């Protein structure tokens, strides 16, 4: 067990440079490229000044900016507000220091700590992430097993077509199709047009609340699930098939065990190992949210926040989102490795 502890300690330590690398890349990309928040603000000022017919230009003694004068002090103040008054590596270090001290900065748009902005979106993303995750395992594992057991049969070939189709349609695209067909546009009005809940949700009875939530959940959940449907099913199938060709299965058959117990007791247990190790990766992907699906269904989750923060140049939120999503993802990978070590006794740590 000592070997395992030190192995994971090393893994966690190795995550630090990876995490630093990601934040450096994004920090520099966001700060170096033109069109950042400061430029946007200046542009707004310039347009405003132009609209006023140059009345504001009488300040005098200011720096010349696109024909309009912006007072020196105002410029300095603005630079300071956006943190642009220091060189970029200093800015990065101070940003990083704040992150380490659990301070992600203040959102330009919401004028509140970034953490609060992100925290508010967590329940929605966890809700869909968790249910999507459970649903995809609940469907894909039995389907993969059935396909492996009946390898080459009509059922296997037929469901392969379904799996390949699922692979060819991204979740958000299927979501869009379902929304058009079932959302009450031109065809059937079965499900609501997106959103997490109805606006009147707070005033509903308990049963009404549950039903309303359910109606709003079905379509996005299907879209979330389709994303991992194909890979997970094929992984399960191939894993079981591989195990059924192993010597220990031959032995089990040779000693006269019935087919059912050979497959479901001996082979299945081992073939679940790669499936179990995928859990961490998948949780990471689900939780970080799919902004495409959230956008199609107009759900105000974590992914949507990350997306809109780019549009509104709310860089503290963008960076905060990346930090949180990155941590979730790295934790997911770590969980995968740990699961692997726990379920597969062959894994030994040096």
């Amino acid at each position: 067990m000592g070997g395992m502890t030190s192995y994971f300690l090393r893994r966690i330590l190795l995550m630090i440079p990876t995490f630093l690398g990601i934040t450096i890349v994004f920090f520099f990309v966001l700060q170096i490229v033109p069109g950042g928040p400061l430029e946007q603000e200046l542009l707004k000022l310039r347009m405003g000044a132009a609209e006023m017919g140059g009345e504001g230009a009488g300040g005098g003694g200011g720096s010349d900016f696109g024909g309009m004068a912006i007072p020196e002090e105002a410029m300095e103040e603005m630079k300071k507000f956006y943190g642009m008054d220091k060189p970029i590596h200093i800015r990065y270090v101070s940003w990083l220091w704040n992150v380490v001290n659990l301070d992600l900065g203040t959102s330009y748009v919401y004028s509140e700590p970034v953490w609060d902005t992100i925290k508010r979106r967590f329940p929605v993303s966890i809700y869909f992430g968790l249910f999507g995750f459970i649903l995809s395992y609940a469907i894909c594992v039995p389907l993969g097993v059935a396909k492996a057991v009946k390898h080459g049969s009509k059922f296997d070939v037929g469901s392969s077509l379904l799996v390949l189709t699922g692979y060819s349609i991204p979740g958000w695209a299927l979501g869009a199709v379902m929304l058009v067909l079932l959302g009450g546009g031109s065809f059937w009005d079965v499900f609501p047009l997106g959103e997490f809940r109805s606006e009147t949700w707070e005033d509903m009875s308990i049963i009404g609340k549950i039903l309303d939530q359910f109606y709003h959940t079905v379509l996005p959940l299907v879209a979330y699930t389709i994303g991992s449907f194909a890979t997970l099913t094929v992984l399960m199938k191939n894993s079981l098939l591989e195990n059924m060709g192993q010597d220990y299965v031959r032995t089990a058959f040779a000693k006269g065990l019935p087919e059912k117990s050979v497959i479901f007791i001996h082979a299945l247990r081992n073939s679940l190992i790669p499936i179990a190790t995928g859990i961490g990766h998948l949780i990471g992907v689900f939780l970080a949210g799919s902004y495409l699906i959230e956008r199609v269904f107009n759900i105000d989750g974590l992914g949507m926040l990350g997306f809109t923060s780019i549009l509104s140049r709310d860089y503290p939120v963008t960076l905060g989102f990346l930090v949180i999503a990155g941590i979730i993802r790295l934790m997911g990978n770590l969980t995968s490795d740990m699961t692997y070590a726990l379920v597969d006794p062959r894994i030994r740590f040096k």
Partner: protein
Amino acid sequence: MTEQIKTVYKSESLMAKRIRKFRSIKRGYYSFIIITIGYLISFLSPFLMNYKALVISYDDQLYFPVVNYYPSDTFGVDGFGEANYRDLKGEFKAADNGNWVIMPLYSYGPYESLTDRRSEPPNEPSLQHWFGTDDRGRDVFVRLAYGFNISLSFALIYVAISFLIGISIGASLGYYGGKLDIYAQRFIEIWAAIPFLYTVIIISSILKPNFGLLIFVLSLFGWIGMTYFMRGEFYREKAKDYVHAAIAMGATDFKVIFKHILPNSLVPVITFGPFMIVGAISSLVALDFLGFGLPPPTASWGELVGQGMSNIFSWWLVLFPLLAMAVTLLMVVFIGEAVRQAFDPKEFSRLR
């Protein structure tokens, strides 16, 4: 004599065997034929789907508006710019004085706004516009057809570039190993942990994206998966006797890498190709849908879906582009499945 012996004793090469196997997998083989022919034909789109006439005979002289520009008064029509060749065809027919117009099979262009209709665009599918029109009155069917060419070209170039980068990096890491390998591995690990679609969105929200820039940015992330594979492959091959022999005979690193090892490791990598095409096309459609893809007025599938999501009653704007995407991707997946089976056969021996 020697000719004869050759033909008698020549056994089927590995490649020939693979191609035979590929052709025997009907689903993938036919998809390959359909996609290839469709893609080649799509280069002729301007001659098949256009609002410009192919040939006009006017006062016993031939004109070719599809390749040349003629002001409208050339054909005795008042107005600025080009004549409306669809109307012209009807007029010539009605006048019946020996003039004629040959229109393309489908006589609407991809950028042509048909806003002079009586109803507001987007218009429902009809006999004139098989898949309806979009919110600027452009024919959806034509835009889908042009979009097919753009999407596939995009994906093919992207895959080619990613292959080039991935193979070179993977090969040099596996071949040289050592410190280079260790440091590069750390770097790749960081690179792989970056959420790439999000990065692309950031970059294209700031720089105005175009075809080349989008391919460049996507390729920056496309090579990673293949690099792991190539690295492992080169690492393994390097230890084999034929490589030692080549080095002993004085072959340069360049020669060993490209002439001796690469042909042996390249084949399994080819099976990555179709699935990378699927990834590239769906990424492009997603980016276009979000509004961070190819610049307007490029004919794009994702942009139509984006329009459809804001006009939920215009079902044809969502269903037809996504159907086009799904059918295309499904066929590419079929190809990929067949290529994988042909190049990397994995027979499962089922006991009992």
